[in-house]
């Protein structure tokens, strides 16, 4: 398991060309699936501003770099509907608050969310229902 906080700033490098595409700025969560959907990059050499990369192109997430398959235009132009999970308010589907998100542990091999660490305890990735502008909604226990 790796933490979201531990991936921020890691260089994103292609396996085929060893080209650096940028650094990880954020991870976008597909909450209902309990999976990471995209990586948001910043500071790529040929790019200005932000770019998004689908998680399906990620080959490995190591302690020092994220390796992606190829630089053959892997970056999606269209920005996914992204809400930052770190710091997000947590709300159960019964309408009760459950603190805010401190960090997220995920399986770097699959992109699956293992545990969401909140200010009021840990929540399993299976309980995520949605992540929007107001809150991360989780299934009540």
């Amino acid at each position, binding site marked *: 398991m790796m933490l979201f906080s531990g991936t921020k700033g890691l260089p994103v490098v292609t396996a085929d060309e060893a080209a650096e595409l940028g650094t990880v700025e954020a991870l976008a969560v597909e*909450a209902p699936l309990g999976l990471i959907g995209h990586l948001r990059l910043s500071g790529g050499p040929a790019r200005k501003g932000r770019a998004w990369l689908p998680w399906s192109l990620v080959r490995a997430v190591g302690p020092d770099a994220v390796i992606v398959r190829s630089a053959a235009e892997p970056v999606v132009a269209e920005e996914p509907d992204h*809400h930052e999970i770190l710091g*997000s308010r947590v*709300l*159960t*589907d*019964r*309408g*009760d*608050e459950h603190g805010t998100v401190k960090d997220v542990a995920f399986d770097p091999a699959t992109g699956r969310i293992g545990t969401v660490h909140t200010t009021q305890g840990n929540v399993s990735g299976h309980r995520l*229902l*949605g*992540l*929007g*502008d*107001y*809150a*991360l*909604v989780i299934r009540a226990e």
Partner: protein
Amino acid sequence: MDALMLASELAKRPVVTLAGEVVAEVKDTVFDGTAGQITGFTLNGRGLLAGPLKQSLPWSSVHALGRHAVLVPGREALAEPAAVVASGEAAHGAVPGAKVLTDEGVEAGSVLDVVVAPDGRVVGFRISATEAFVHRDHGRHSVFVPRGEALAVSGRALVVPSGASHFVADDLPSFTTQVEIFAARAAASKGSKGTAAGREHL
């Protein structure tokens, strides 16, 4: 029993979809004609859309009423105002301020607020009680009375069972306990009547 809430506290509570998007906030809570159940909410917008919304939220579209938010399955849960206001028009706005009478004709006070359960049922009222009703002699008291089974709502008056005066509570947590006792006693008396009727048949 889950935490009981005051209807007045529901105002400004955000309406949030299961996808985590906030779509509105509660303006007013609307009750059915007998003030037994929430029929829905009128809504205000949030942020740039602040102010009364044309849409409302019928209770049938509510996923959960919680301590911090009203959860809805999605944005499509919001409906025309008629879905909520027309059916509850008689009770809407008439409940707070209504006169409270016991079924023995004693004035018990006036309604300050409505106590609701997370399932939308009205379980009691916060009233400004008369001395005669609470049997205390320090003037008027703000107390909670259970809705009971035999309550009637007519026009601007509420009729509560006189037995409810034994169950008045000074705060919401102790009221929660007393509602349970009241409900258990009501269920037990119904049960014994049932048994008596059964014996007559034999």
